[in-house]
């Protein structure tokens, strides 16, 4: 009995000792943390570099253990313990949202001041640029639409390690998959390359995402993603159009080498009803730069089509494929040599160039493209804009180019909104349904832009009313 009593006493003393030891160890930890917090702020205790090298932030590892059914509640509480990097990313997303809200689709236009590209640039070059990716679950809670897409592109361009798996995680977490895919494709195309994406704004397409340079997609995973996007039929929303344009551009770099790429681009290139404007433009832009013999054959087939809408863009972008050995026309060479200050000769020069274009069967799109380019440059006085617009629209030299020029000039200067009515008249004459939809969209944007300019507003509304009143019924 006494032996049992001794044993119990021994056990009791042992447990008291262990408790005391645990108590002192705990106190020691607390004191050490107190000391650290005096030395450095808490946010600095996690090194971003260490986070990148480790692949996942420590708090992310903890969060992965949370069961799905409580994930949402935990994410809300996690917001209160965000890192300073997450807060800076949120600030960036807010900036993008603000620009998109204020400018609409114009927020991506290369000639619009304070566009998304300039927001990205100033953020990237600021000292605040975080050095780690944002928490994917936090990002999908805050970011939507274009801001989510822009975040994906920006982080891709910055080359964060683990970016692809981060994008996959975003795709799993978010319902806005199209926006994430747009961002991912734009990131894969790179920010510098042979393709000038601003070119896409020069023709009536619904491309809306960031200009700058791009290169061919090379990774198998990107080509497969682009091919999947093109095979889906969705063309319902603005973002669908943009995504298809990027996907076609991405694929076009491998047009010569890959049979599955040629198959994927067959419908966007040749299917007529309705024309897939965005994918078509994206494919042509890429084929003109990266294409070879097979691309040249396809381009020639397109030119044989009746009432082909894209002759101007095809000649502008794929001219090198069509006539490798031919020199540009004499009219083109002369127009190229005009001085930018040739104001006194501008009337005569423009008339002569357009006469040459007309006499050559209205096929010298290289010349037309040059005239368009010079007319859109506000510093270039060599082309007389009113003459160019009138001849294109009223004399039917090239209605598509004329409508586009009228829109662009109106965006540049409210004084030019007077041309919009002429463009509406041309669209009415041609029954161009797709172009009409795009034109009406531009009118809506112009209406917002010039809300405080009464005479411009009158012009815009006259054009809207004209199309609404006399436009033929939609098919």
């Amino acid at each position, binding site marked *: 009995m006494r032996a049992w009593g001794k044993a119990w006493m021994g056990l009791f003393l042992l447990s008291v000792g262990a408790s005391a030891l645990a108590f002192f160890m705990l106190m020691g930890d607390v004191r050490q943390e107190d000391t650290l917090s005096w030395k450095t702020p808490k946010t600095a205790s996690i090194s971003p570099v260490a986070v990148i090298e480790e692949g996942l932030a420590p708090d992310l590892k903890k969060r992965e253990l949370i069961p799905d059914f409580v994930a949402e509640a935990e994410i809300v509480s996690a917001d209160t313990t965000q890192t300073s990097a997450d807060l800076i990313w949120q600030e960036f997303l807010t900036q993008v949202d603000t620009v998109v809200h204020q400018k609409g689709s114009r927020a991506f236009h290369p000639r619009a001041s304070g566009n998304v590209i300039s927001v990205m640039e100033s953020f990237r070059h600021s000292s605040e640029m975080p050095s780690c990716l944002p928490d994917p679950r936090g990002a999908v809670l805050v970011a939507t639409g274009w801001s989510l897409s822009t975040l994906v592109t920006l982080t891709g361009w910055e080359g964060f390690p683990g970016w692809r798996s981060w994008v996959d995680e975003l795709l799993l977490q978010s319902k806005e998959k199209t926006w994430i895919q747009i961002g991912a494709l734009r990131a894969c195309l790179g920010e510098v390359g042979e393709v000038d994406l601003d070119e896409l704004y020069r023709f009536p397409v619904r491309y809306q995402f960031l200009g700058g340079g791009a290169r061919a997609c090379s990774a198998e995973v990107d080509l497969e993603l682009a091919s999947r996007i093109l095979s889906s039929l969705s063309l319902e929303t603005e973002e669908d159009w943009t995504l298809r344009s990027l996907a076609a551009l991405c694929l076009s770099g491998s047009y010569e080498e890959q049979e599955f790429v040629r198959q994927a681009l067959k419908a966007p290139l040749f299917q007529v009803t309705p024309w897939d404007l965005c994918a078509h433009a994206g494919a042509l832009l890429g084929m003109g730069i990266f294409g070879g013999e097979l691309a040249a054959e396809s381009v020639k087939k397109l030119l044989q089509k009746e009432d082909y809408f894209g002759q101007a863009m095809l000649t502008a972008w794929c001219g090198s494929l069509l006539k490798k050995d031919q020199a540009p026309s004499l009219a083109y060479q002369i127009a190229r040599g005009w001085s930018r200050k040739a104001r006194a000769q501008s009337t005569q020069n423009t008339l002569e160039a357009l006469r040459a274009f007309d006499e050559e069967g209205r096929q010298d799109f290289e010349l037309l493209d040059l005239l368009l380019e010079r007319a859109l440059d506000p510093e270039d006085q060599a082309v007389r804009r009113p003459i160019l617009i009138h001849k294109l629209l009223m004399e039917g030299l090239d209605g598509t180019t004329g409508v586009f020029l009228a829109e662009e000039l109106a965006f540049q200067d409210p*004084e030019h909104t007077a041309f919009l009515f002429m463009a509406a008249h041309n669209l009415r004459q041609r029954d161009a349904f797709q172009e009409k939809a795009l034109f009406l969209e531009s009118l809506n944007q112009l209406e917002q832009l010039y809300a405080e300019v009464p005479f411009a507003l009158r012009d815009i509304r006259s054009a809207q009313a004209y199309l609404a009143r006399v436009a033929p019924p939609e098919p």
Partner: protein
Amino acid sequence: MKYVALIFFFLAPSFSVGANSFGVPGRAGQAECDTQLARCLQSAFEQALSNDQACIKTWCDKVFFLTFCDEEGLSRCIQKADAVYGAALRACQTDFSACSGMERRNS
């Protein structure tokens, strides 16, 4: 001579802008209004061309194959010509609206 041409230039646009090629205002056939609109725009364009020529005659001198211009004067004149052309286009819009009985949307 330059000043005479300049005075002519500033007077000429007022004739073109004021001219109404649509005849009696009111509702007419849509096709007829379209035709008249095209005619009005063509007339405005021809006037714009002659205004351009007037500017060049006023502010530039041609010596053999070379043209010397007062760039500042020419620039102002061309700007004015553009404004006149814009006004002419707007007059065509107004006349077309009257012709077809098209109502403008209120702001």
